[in-house]
């Protein structure tokens, strides 16, 4: 079964056992939300860094699918297909 890859920023990699890329097997398109559920299932702290307890993406966490930030698409309902790459990148924020 092909995979969908989620690429993590370096600051989050310690929460994923040191991995820079997490993959989930998928035999067809899935939503970004379901993809995050799958790749963080063994990494609960990582999951909480990305989304709050309501499931909402944290304000300054951006997720890109083929170069587009998902808030400009369908948010966590954005569909990704096997072979696509999903990037997690923190916003430029703070002072």
């Amino acid at each position, binding site marked *: 079964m092909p995979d969908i890859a989620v690429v993590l920023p370096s600051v989050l990699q310690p929460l994923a056992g040191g991995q820079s890329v997490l993959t989930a097997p998928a035999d067809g398109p899935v939503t970004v939300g379901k993809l995050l559920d799958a790749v963080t299932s063994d990494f609960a*702290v990582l999951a*909480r*860094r990305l989304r*709050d*307890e*309501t499931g909402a993406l*944290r304000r*300054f966490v951006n997720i890109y699918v083929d170069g587009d930030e998902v808030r400009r698409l369908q948010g966590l309902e954005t569909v990704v297909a096997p072979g696509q790459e999903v990037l997690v990148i923190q916003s430029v*924020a703070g002072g």
Partner: protein
Amino acid sequence: MVRMASAESFVLAIGTKKGLWLATSQDRREWSFTGPHFLMSEIPSIGIDTRDGRTRIMVGVRSEHWGPTVAHSDDLGATWSEPEQGAIKFPEDTGAAVERVWQIYPDVASRPGVVWAGAEPISLWKSTDGGEHFELNRGLWDHPHRSEWGAGYGGAAAHSIVVHPAGETVHVAMSTGGVYRSLDGGSSWEPRNKGISAYFMPDPNPEFGQCVHKIAADPAVEGRLYAQNHHGVYRTDDNADTWKSIAEGLPADFGFVMLTHPRREGTAWVIPLKADGERIPPNGELAVHRTDDAGSTWKRMAFGLPRGEYNSVLRDAASVDTAEPAGVYFGTRGGTVYASADEGETFREVAAHLPDVLCVRAAVVAGA
């Protein structure tokens, strides 16, 4: 219990906008620092729990990117633990998410393992496992006033928790909402703000809606508490049923800090700021004011503090320890921390040039 400074050590925890610094001392004059811990995360709340024969430091951590969490260390910051599922998270049915943990408050020695927390959005939490997991207080969350509570400049939060050693009385203060009291351990809550002004509202004397900045209990007089309000300094002698002003004698009635002595009746400290619209020490002269007679008179104390200080001191950026004499500690938004080993008579600068100081806590510990 009086703790003698000569037999024990001291821990000072400084939470800032960009991390946590920890310090230990044998004499409250020379401090050894570690940090920053949690670099680039703000630390708005700290609880130092010295019960059960160990020193547990609990911190509210909040990253602008990665959100809030609570971590704890049992080895003075050498290692930190964070529960996998999070120590504080709203139940699904509330539809809410924690924004920031504003207060972590270990209960009294007779209730080991019990730790309270206050958070944004306005909520009260209780742990019975030493701060590793907290449960939402439904009595306050479901209070019919909730929809009318507002947000101060820093956000809407339950920021002060006062748990009384005997019985089931708990006081919580929130901005904005005012003081709420429970007589049944937190099952039910009633506003208790009679006498506290809310000049910024159409009715300046509402049942609730006050912007209380900090409350603290007198350790020796049951039913006596002190409040630093958004303009106004108050005392209650009847368990918060009524409040009366004790601001006379202070250079200003605005400020955020309210500290009380760990044992002695009638002793409290405030750090006045000029006004809501001018949040600086009066005349740029930073000073702590102490009362030893429950607010009838105030003594200005500035020995060791700088002149020309224009940074404010936030509500939790001050603390007392339990030594004899009690230590007084506070930090400014300019990143300077001062400590007094003699109840405020003289201060020493113990840290400077840190990020904005959000929270300061100090404790007497064994063998640090």
